[in-house]
Each structure stands twice: as C-alpha cells, then as structure tokens.
C-alpha cells in the first residue's frame, strides 16, 4: 500500500513518447516526447499552427495519435478512459456555453458528471464569479466566460488540469485576472498543463516551458534557462528615420554595430532593428555613438530584458505573433 502511494508520487502526471499525428496533408504533431511531473505547471508555447492544441487534445483523449504512447496519471486512454475523464479537468479553446443558462446552472450541469469534486459554490468562489452567479452566460464578458470555463474544469477537483489558450482574445486586465486564478491553482499544488502563444503568459505562469514549432519541441526548460540561451540578457530595439539622413533612406551599416563589445547579434524586422546585448549599460552609449557617426536620426529606441519571444525569434527567425 505504502509502496503504491510512493510509486504514485514519483510517477509523472503526463508522459508522451514519440507522438505523431497528421491531418490530411498537415503533420500537426511530428515526433513529440514530453514528461510533466506532479505539481508542475507546464507550458506549451508556440505560434498558431505549431501543434499545441493537437498535442493537448491527444492528452485529453479527444484525438487519438497516429503513433506514439500517451500516459496520463499513469493510465492510458484506451484502457481507462472513464476513470481518466473523472480525474482530469479540461478547458478547451473556444467553447461556447449555452447563452441562456446561468453561471450556476452551467456549473451544476458539469458538476453532475463527476462522482466526486468540489461544490458548485466553491467553484464559483474560486473563479470569482459570485456576482455573476445568477447571470446568463450570454451576458458575461470574455474574461468572465473564460473563468466560467475554468470553473467547469475545476468542479471535478481534478488531479491534472488542461488549459488550452486560457487567455487568447482577452483584454490585458481580464488576462491578469485569469493569471491570478492560475497562480492560486498552482499554489494549491495542482498539476497544470497549458498552451499559449503569449510568451509573457508562459514566463509568468509556467515552471517549465516547451517551445513548439511545426509539431516539434524546439526548446525545453525553465523560462530562465531558455532565456539564457539567447546569449544577451537584454534586447535593444531601435528604428531610424530617413528624413534627417538627406535622402539616404536611413540605411544602417550593421557591421560596426555588431562589432561593439557586448552586442551578440543583430536582426531587423519591419524597420525595427533588434540587438541582443549583454552589459547593457556599457553597450548603449557605444550604440548611440555609432549611429550618430553614421549620421542617422533615431525615431525609436527602447530596451527590454530578453524574453521567451526572443528565444523563439532566435530559434526560428520568426516572431511568435507572425502567424
């Protein structure tokens, strides 16, 4: 008995091995291996079409893989689908609950599907929807609808929670509200697997992140580890205007810039130059001096700490937002 509990405790919540799935002519998931430990908040980060949703839906038992093994809570979908459905919580992308039901009615319905779980009141409280308890779903804001979807995922008191793009389409305030909710769930020790194409979201919420592109994991680690791979800790972004350059169209000679000590790399995207920089305080004055020497007028200049976005850019040459 004790042995079993101990074995259970070290068993990963999720294990994917050699996962592949193709739709018609698209290879949505192309050889994926992942392990998510108990109590971890794990993020799948990638642009739209990277295969995140297909991956998470395979984990949720909604899609069956063409190849590979899926183990959820030590069980597999073929043999233990009913048990698994009782033990996991799911929030899907773009579910529209019936407009004419109230929040409470919707939750009562979902609660009735689970053998055990928290009360409807508790789920309303957790999702901070007390004021909207008697409101119809049709009258909720986007953020409230999303929190309702999360509450529906929580009524069964799940051991493992899947959130597919929980904040897509929400305004910044509603997004922060959802983040607070996920934070609280994390602190309660729940295992969470979420997908997102917002790097701030992955950085803020996830213990570990897998960056996906074209159905593959291209980087895996804690957000800090991944950001460290960019090289520089900071990113300098600037744009130059051509008017002051006297018809020279503001062409930047990049060779002298990358020669500055501390500047790791340069790329340009839609007129915006990006330099990956370490020792920002030393590099910036030199960058200013060099641009001045080239007779260029700065129309924009800013710096930020390197993010997962920059990791993705470095790995793929594309922005997360592009797609």
């Amino acid at each position, binding site marked *: 008995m004790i042995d079993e509990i101990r074995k259970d405790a070290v068993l990963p919540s999720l294990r994917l091995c050699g996962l592949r799935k193709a739709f018609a002519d698209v290879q949505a998931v192309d050889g994926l291996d992942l392990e998510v430990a108990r109590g971890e908040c794990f993020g799948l980060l990638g642009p739209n079409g990277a295969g995140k949703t297909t991956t998470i839906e395979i984990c949720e038992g909604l899609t069956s893989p063409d190849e590979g093994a899926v183990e959820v809570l030590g069980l597999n979908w073929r043999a233990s689908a009913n048990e698994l459905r*009782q033990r996991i919580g799911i929030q899907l992308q773009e*579910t529209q609950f*019936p407009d004419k039901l109230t929040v409470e009615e919707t939750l009562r319905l979902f609660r*009735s599907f689970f053998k055990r779980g928290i009360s409807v009141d508790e789920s309303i409280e957790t999702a901070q929807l007390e004021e909207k308890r008697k409101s119809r779903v049709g009258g909720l804001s986007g953020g409230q609808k999303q929190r309702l979807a999360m509450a529906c995922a929580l009524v069964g008191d799940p051991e493992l929670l899947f959130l597919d793009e929980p904040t897509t389409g929400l305004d910044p305030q509603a997004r922060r509200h959802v983040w607070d909710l996920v934070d609280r769930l994390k602190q309660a020790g729940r295992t969470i697997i979420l997908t997102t194409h917002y790097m701030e979201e992955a950085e803020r919420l996830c213990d570990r992140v897998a960056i996906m592109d074209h159905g593959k994991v291209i980087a895996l680690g804690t957000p800090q580890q991944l950001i460290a791979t960019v090289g520089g800790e900071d990113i300098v972004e600037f744009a130059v205007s051509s008017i002051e350059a006297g018809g020279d169209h503001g062409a930047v000679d990049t060779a002298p810039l990358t020669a500055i000590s501390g500047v790791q790399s340069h790329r340009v995207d839609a007129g915006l130059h990006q330099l990956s920089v370490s020792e920002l305080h030393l590099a910036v004055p030199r960058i200013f001096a060099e641009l001045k020497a080239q007779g260029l007028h700065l129309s924009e200049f800013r710096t930020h700490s390197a993010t997962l976005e920059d990791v993705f850019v470095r790995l793929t040459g594309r922005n997360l937002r592009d797609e």
Partner: protein
Amino acid sequence: MNRLERSSLYQLTMVRFKLFVREPEAIFWIFIFPVLLALGLGIAFRNRPADVLQVGATTTQLTQALAADKGLTATTLNEADGARALATGRILLLAIQRPNGVAYKFDDTNADARTARLLVDRAIQTAAGQQQAVQADNELVHEKGSRYIDFVVPGLLGMNLMGSAMWGLAFAIVEARQKKLLKRMVASPMPRWQYLMSFLLSRLVMLIVDVAVFLGFARLAFGVPFRGSLPQLGLICLLTSMSFSALGLLVSTRARTTEAASGLMNLVMLPMWILSGIFFSATRFPAVVQPLVRALPLTAAIDAMRGNMLQGMNLGQLMLPMGILLAWFVVPFAVSLRIFRWR
C-alpha cells in the same frame, strides 16, 4: 443538492427544458402557430348552409314554378337580358319558354350550373304535373367528424409533431457541435447516451403539453371528435414524436453548421409536407407513388391519428402505420448512434 439534482441525466434534461422555455420563438412555432393555423383553416372551411342558386326565366309562369324550389331564386327576364345576365354570371341558367317546350341555356362545364339545370328541370316538370316514379325522402347529415376541420386537425397535429421533434433535436445538437460545446461535453465524464436521452425525455414532457394544448383547442373551438381511445392516441403521438426525433438525430449526426442542418431538415420534411396528406387526402396521388407515400413516417402518423380520432379504430387495426412508425424510429436511431460525430 439532493440525489435527483446530482443525477446527470436529470441535469441534462432540465437544461434542455430551460433552454427551450427561454427561447420565445420556439414556443411560438410549437405551441401557438398550430393553434392559429387550425383557427384559420377552421374559419375558412366552416360549413355554411347550402347555397341558393340564381336562375332566370322568360315567363312569369316559369318563374313561379321555379320559386317552388327552396334551392333556387328565380327572376323573370326577357331573352336578351337573360343572355347578358348569364354571360356576367349573375344567373347560372336561363329557362326559355319555346312553343314546343322549354330550353335551358347554361354552361355545362360549371358544376353549379349543372346542379341548377337539375333543380330547374325538376321544378318545371313537377309544376307540369309529373309524379315521382319512386318515393324518395331526404335525410340531411351535418355530423361532426365529416367536416374539413375534423380532417385537417390530425394532419396539423402530425405536422406539428414532425416539426417540433426534428427542429428540437437536430438544431440544438448541431448548434452545440458548432459552438464546440458538444466536444466539451464529451471531454467530461458525461455518459454519452445520457446526452441523447435527455433530448428524448425533454421531448416527451413537452409532447404532453404540445398535444394537450392543440387537441384541447380543436375540441373546444371546433368540437373535433375523439372516437378512439385517448391513451392509444397518446401512444400514437409518442411514437410519432420518437420517430421524428430519431430522424432529427440522423440529420444532426454529421452536419457541422446550423445552416447545413436547416437545409438537410427541409430536404427531409418537404416531401412529407406535400405527400403525406396534411391538408388533403394522400390517396389523391397516383397509384404508382402510393407505396412511397404510404412508407413516409408522416403519412403513417397522420393515417393512424385519423384512424383513431375520426374512425375510432383501435391499435389492432392500425398495425401497419404503427409498424411503419416503429421502423422509422429504430432504423434512423441505430444508424445515428453508429455514425454520430461527437466533435
């Protein structure tokens, strides 16, 4: 929460109810529209006293002879005026006194004119002293049950049950699929059969209200007869509703959008609106298509309802339509369960 409230089948069924009741348009189409239709048809086709036919005659003697028949109103006209009145439709027939007898001027393609011819001839011959060769008396019948409204009420009931069952099921399911709600439901531990069962259960309860309101109205407003057993009529309505629910389920199995489902549904229902004898007897169609017409579920449903309500037939005499309805329940339901798209 008590045990009932914790049951998922109960919750699913209650949700179906709430969603239905909160949709005012659906209430109109299912409960009010059939009543309005029956009311309109009942007024339009109400039985009036037999029409009195307008005729003309060229002499006063003839006019007096014709006045003896209560079914005729005769006017004395000269031949020229009479011909004009005939041409404009003011009179149906002109009786002209000729030296050797009487001539009748009328349009023999007009049924009323032909009737006028018979009445006029009988009146003139009687006035001239003709005796009936055989003694004949009229016994007039204005019995409830033989009127058009009595015929059309079972037709409307069948049509209403078809529409409400098919729309109620197919539209709601396809909408849930389109909104990804169906996918969310099957991602939860909800037993799938309960989802479909909740539609049938809620349909069953609404059926009771639906049928009671409509037939109650037909009874109170028009005195439509119920000659057969009411429980058996209830059973016929139940089976009808279940068959059309199964058909609605079949329509909903693959459709991804409500638009596609609407199109499919009209495709399924349109032949039945025309062929199944809602407003006129389905026997009017040529013998070649009769087997097809008979095999349609709505024809079977309406036949069974008319048999029960108008002819007082019991289920034993309605085995054929009931069997057809049962087949229309079992086959589409079984096929639907096999090919249903849950996402």
